């Protein structure tokens, strides 16, 4: 399934897999939560949540805005609209030191270039040799400390064998390491990635092993299709559910958000 493909529907409105992913990610956010938002898919989802069921969601961007309420999608994490609509604008050191580091943020919302079966994230290099990478990616940004210090981390990423790998080439942001207990051993305070939302479904760490298992598939998606898009032997939860299709309201809000300039 590629991004532009329409997912099969019955009476539900037509929607793309990317739309389903953004809507599923938005639904994961609760009213009143403080959410540290990366640009791109996370920002779309967080802003959609604010426009639908969680109007008082507090958006925090690493550029230095607390409580931004943008009327359109910001073009970057430093878009002027984020500062203009914020409760408070602060310096970048303050964002990281006074707000992120002490664990004041409920949810860190991250993207990924590569994600492995313990939800470790790579945004640094593709290839095993750091000094001579096959592909040089942008790097860490705020992610390592977002992944460490937020109470929970949600990852939003398109799923494919290339992005979902057995083991990431480089651990940019620590998920669950090599399994259950690794975070505690390192003294990390946040729970780490508790939710991975893709264009095919939703994965969660197994409570016993911390390995990501498929807990939810989006409408029209089959389990085998998800397994085929995963670079490890993906386990499926015995309590697998199917994502509710986007409502008209959700789809309209998302499309308006993406159309607004």
């Amino acid at each position, binding site marked *: 399934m590629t991004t532009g493909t329409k997912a099969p529907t019955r009476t539900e409105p037509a929607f793309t897999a990317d739309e389903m992913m953004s809507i599923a990610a938005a639904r994961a956010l609760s009213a009143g939560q403080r959410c540290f938002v990366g*640009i*791109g898919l996370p920002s779309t989802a967080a802003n959609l949540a604010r426009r639908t069921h969680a109007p008082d969601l507090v958006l925090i961007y*690493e*550029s*230095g*805005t607390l409580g931004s309420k943008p009327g359109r999608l910001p*073009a*970057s*994490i*430093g*878009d*002027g609209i*984020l*500062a*203009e609509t914020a409760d408070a*604008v602060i*310096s*970048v*050191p303050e964002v*990281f*030191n006074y707000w*992120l*580091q002490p664990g004041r943020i409920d949810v860190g919302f991250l993207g990924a270039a590569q994600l492995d079966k313990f939800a470790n994230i790579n945004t*640094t290099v593709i290839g095993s040799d*750091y*000094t*001579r*990478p*096959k*592909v*040089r*990616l*942008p*790097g*860490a*940004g*705020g*992610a*390592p*400390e977002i992944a*460490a*210090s937020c109470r929970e981390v949600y990852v939003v990423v398109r799923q494919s064998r290339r992005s979902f790998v057995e083991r990431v080439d*480089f*651990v*940019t*942001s*620590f998920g669950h*390491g090599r399994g259950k207990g*690794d*975070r505690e051993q*390192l*003294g*990390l305070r946040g729970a780490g990635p508790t939710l991975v939302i893709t264009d095919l479904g939703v994965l969660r760490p197994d409570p016993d092993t911390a390995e990501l298992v498929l807990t939810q598939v989006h409408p029209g998606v089959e389990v085998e299709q998800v397994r085929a898009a995963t670079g490890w032997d993906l386990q499926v939860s015995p309590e697998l559910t199917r994502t509710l299709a986007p409502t008209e309201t959700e789809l309209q809000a998302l499309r308006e958000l993406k159309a607004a300039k």
Partner: protein
Amino acid sequence: MAEILALSDAVARLVRDGDTVALEGFTHLIPHAAGQEIIRQRRRDLTLVRMTPDIVYDQLIGAGCARKLVFSWGGNPGVGSLHRFRDAVQNSWPVPLEIEEHSHAGMANRYVAGASGLPFAVLRGYTGTDLPEHTDTIKQITCPFTGERLAAVPALNPDVAIIHAQRADRAGNVQLWGLVGVQKEAVLAARRSLVTVEEIVDELTPVPGGMVLPGWAVTAVAEVPRGAHPSYAQGYYERDNEYYEYWDSIGRERDSFEQWLDEKVFSVAETAGGSAVKEAAK
């Protein structure tokens, strides 16, 4: 008191071959005109420091000004990759580029330590990641009270910091507002500093959310209208999002980039940074 200089004079006097140079501005107020002036003056062997080496450093790296990059996130925000940066790292073109890679929290704290006259900063950072293995400026330190282990990073003290701001007065006091990023820290951490500003005014009227850097803490100020373009200056002009897309097409290939350099940087008069930038914009 900061000296008020033309951009070309300021860069000529403050930026030297081999210097460690930080151009800061977190999406907002990126000193693009100053970056292009450094290219125009053909500085070499610079260690470039910047949290987000976006287009401004893609240009400097592609032009061969840098031998090393100290950074935490190198992408074209909202668009994708920095092709000149990738080409330098992956293929050593036009010259090899050494990298020293941190996270945003680490870089921000390195500037804070630099501004504070401390040799290092402490943070909860890098835990479990592969960064410390490749970056020798990440170490561990033990709290003398609790025994807890934390990350330590050394202060950044660039030879020169360059930032862009909205305004300065004639005494060189600088005023900026909106997203202020890590600019104050960069200026205070550096041995020398240059602030390009949208305009020089008689008096700095207070602005909500504004910050003032006293002229005695700044080395030089240069008036460069639209000096942040394609980044933006809140209250003056908006971000040119199309330019960021356009840059993807320029930076992607060596040929198109070199043509851009010739036409938009080297063929432009060296005297007027402001007009140079206007010319350089597509």
